[in-house]
């Protein structure tokens, strides 16, 4: 079992008629993902046509879910409308909403998160690369690709990857696949200060997943989500975990690309987080080139086989 999504998961794409959403819907279809519906208000009844695929478009998420049985939606709508798009998934009772959109106002996300209290829908993102559960075909074809990650770099296997950053996730996945180590699921939780699913939520899912034998936890400066996850790992997780924190050289008070990547105090620097990782038994990657090797070291120390 992978976590969150499987190759059978049926997906809705909100914003499928936009450039960005359309391009990535095509790439997901190429990967073999079950993209079963698109949502664009006012374009219900039309179709998103690509090769042999003819994906029906609906006016609302509720209509799309009801007609297709989809349980997950991926959001590509522009920032001013993204909060609304997330709440529409909650209203439709979906299991999971994955918000790719970058640049949603923080206040909108504060309100969305409050409104989601107690709801059954899980949010991943926003400002995230999405989620990939690799498939069994060539270049991991046949998997479930939600979002903007390159599918072909993956390989089906036993390592879980969780990260705030897209390109750093790809870097880790690429290193793993190059060493013939596959992944169960790779989750990008996004670089915003207010997001849905956090590091700890994903770590708990990986810990409970019998197919996941090892975990790579990639974090960055700002906030204390990585520290919270590390402390839980120390107390509860027996699987080997490797960690990396980006931003050791970032100056305090400057926003480093991601809205959430900003050093506010002594507690959220890279050095402070790395110290907590070490204290919690997480094998720290000295450089981003060392992420897969760090996990191999951690696995060897625990006598765990990753392949």
């Amino acid at each position, binding site marked *: 079992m992978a976590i969150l999504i499987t190759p059978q998961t049926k997906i809705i794409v909100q914003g499928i008629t936009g450039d960005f959403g359309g391009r990535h819907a095509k790439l997901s279809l190429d990967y073999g993902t079950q993209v079963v519906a698109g949502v664009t208000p006012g374009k219900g009844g039309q179709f998103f046509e690509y090769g042999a695929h003819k994906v029906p478009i609906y006016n609302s998420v509720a209509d799309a879910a009801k007609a297709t049985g989809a349980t997950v939606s991926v959001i590509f709508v522009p920032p001013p409308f993204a909060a609304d798009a997330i709440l529409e998934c909650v209203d439709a009772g979906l299991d999971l909403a994955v918000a790719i959109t970058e640049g949603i106002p923080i206040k909108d996300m504060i309100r969305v998160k409050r409104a989601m209290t107690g709801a059954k829908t899980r949010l991943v993102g926003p400002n995230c690369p999405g989620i990939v559960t690799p498939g069994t075909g060539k270049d991991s074809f046949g998997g479930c690709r939600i979002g903007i990650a390159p599918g072909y770099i993956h390989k089906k296997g036993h390592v879980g990857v969780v990260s705030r950053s897209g*390109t750093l996730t790809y870097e880790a996945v690429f290193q793993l696949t190059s060493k013939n180590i596959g992944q169960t699921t790779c989750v990008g939780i996004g670089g915003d200060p207010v997001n849905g699913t956090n590091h700890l939520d994903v770590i708990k899912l990986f810990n409970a997943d019998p197919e996941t034998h090892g975990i790579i936890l990639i974090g960055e400066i700002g906030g204390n989500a990585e520290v919270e996850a590390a402390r839980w790992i120390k107390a509860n997780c027996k699987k080997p975990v490797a960690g990396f924190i980006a931003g050791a050289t970032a100056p305090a008070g400057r926003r480093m690309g991601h809205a959430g990547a900003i050093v506010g105090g002594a507690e959220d620097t890279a050095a402070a987080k790395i110290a907590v990782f070490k204290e919690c038994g997480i094998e720290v990657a000295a*450089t*981003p080139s060392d992420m897969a090797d760090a996990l191999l070291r951690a696995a060897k120390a625990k006598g765990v086989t990753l392949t």
Partner: protein
Amino acid sequence: MNIHEYQAKALFEKFGVAVPKGTTATNPEAFVTALAALPEGPTMVKSQIHAGGRGKGTFTNGFKGGVKFCKTKADALVMAGNMLGQTLVTAQTGPAGRKVQTIYFTVASDIKKEYYLAILLDRATSRPVIVASTEGGMDIETVAHDTPEKLFKVLIDPAYGIADFQIRDLITKLGLAGAEAKNAAKLIRNLYTMFWETDAAMVEVNPLITTPTGEVLALDAKVSFDSNALYRHPEIVALRDLNEEDPKEIEASKYSLSYIALDGNIACLVNGAGLAMSTMDIIQHFGGTPANFLDVGGGASKDQVIAAFKIILGDPNVKGILVNIFGGIMDCNVIATGIVEAVKEVGLKLPLVVRLEGNNVVAGKATLAASGLALVSGDTMADAAQKIVKLVA
């Protein structure tokens, strides 16, 4: 986005947050007119730059103090002349300092006691938090570290907004009563409204003061806004002061590049914020110093790469460049072609190490090799970082 103290105080007044009366001047001829709007008596003269630590700062001409108390308006007139047009260096400006282009004159208030008040995002709960302390006028991180019992926090439920009982609770903890309590309650409620309505990222009042007559005033004001929300606040965008920003960062933003200048000599050009941060880190790990953070985004078009090279080369400290691209969806050969064209267009003479990985990387590397350019190829991030550090040393 940051704004000046005088702009923040104008916003405060608009939302009913009491501040000492003040006026501004941007040239010496305007000093007299500006001062005429204030009553005779003790006056503060405040240099307006975005960086903090102004009071303890030093001007490059040797004059000390970017914020001064003057007994009379006549003294204030002379004092303003010492500051305007001069470059102020504070703990937060870096050695280059910032040129003072606006002087803010305010009535010097009688201070009974100083407090601290701020509103910001609490990331752990995803809610706004009000932070207050009886230790005003001090560095709040020091207070949090040394005397955490003097720091009070109230989380606000965004579905309801600030509740009266929460304000009463804060005021009691700050030890305020009578007219002070009544005025503080009004100030806290209005400050929260301003924070929420303007999409502020942080509002900090340090110090907040009480006066012998029971007034409660924001003596200083530091406000920043969520850049993601500026599209719905043209009135706040109008407050942006480009003089306070690095020209290279302004140029970068025109091309949707995220650029931040740093002190080192190895420039980096990377796609993705996380990868860009860790590229800086790995340069330092192998003994070099990064000159900048530069994220060209997930796409990285040819025009963006050319603009990025020009911006990087505008920094005279740069002695070498490291390009680190993980072409996930993007074709590495398209990126390689962009790099070759950019290098030819800008006539690069500095050492350049390129690390390409991902989609169609073999063709990309072939394009780089066939270009005839004197660039060095790196296989992994570690390999590329070690090569550029060696070339620059």
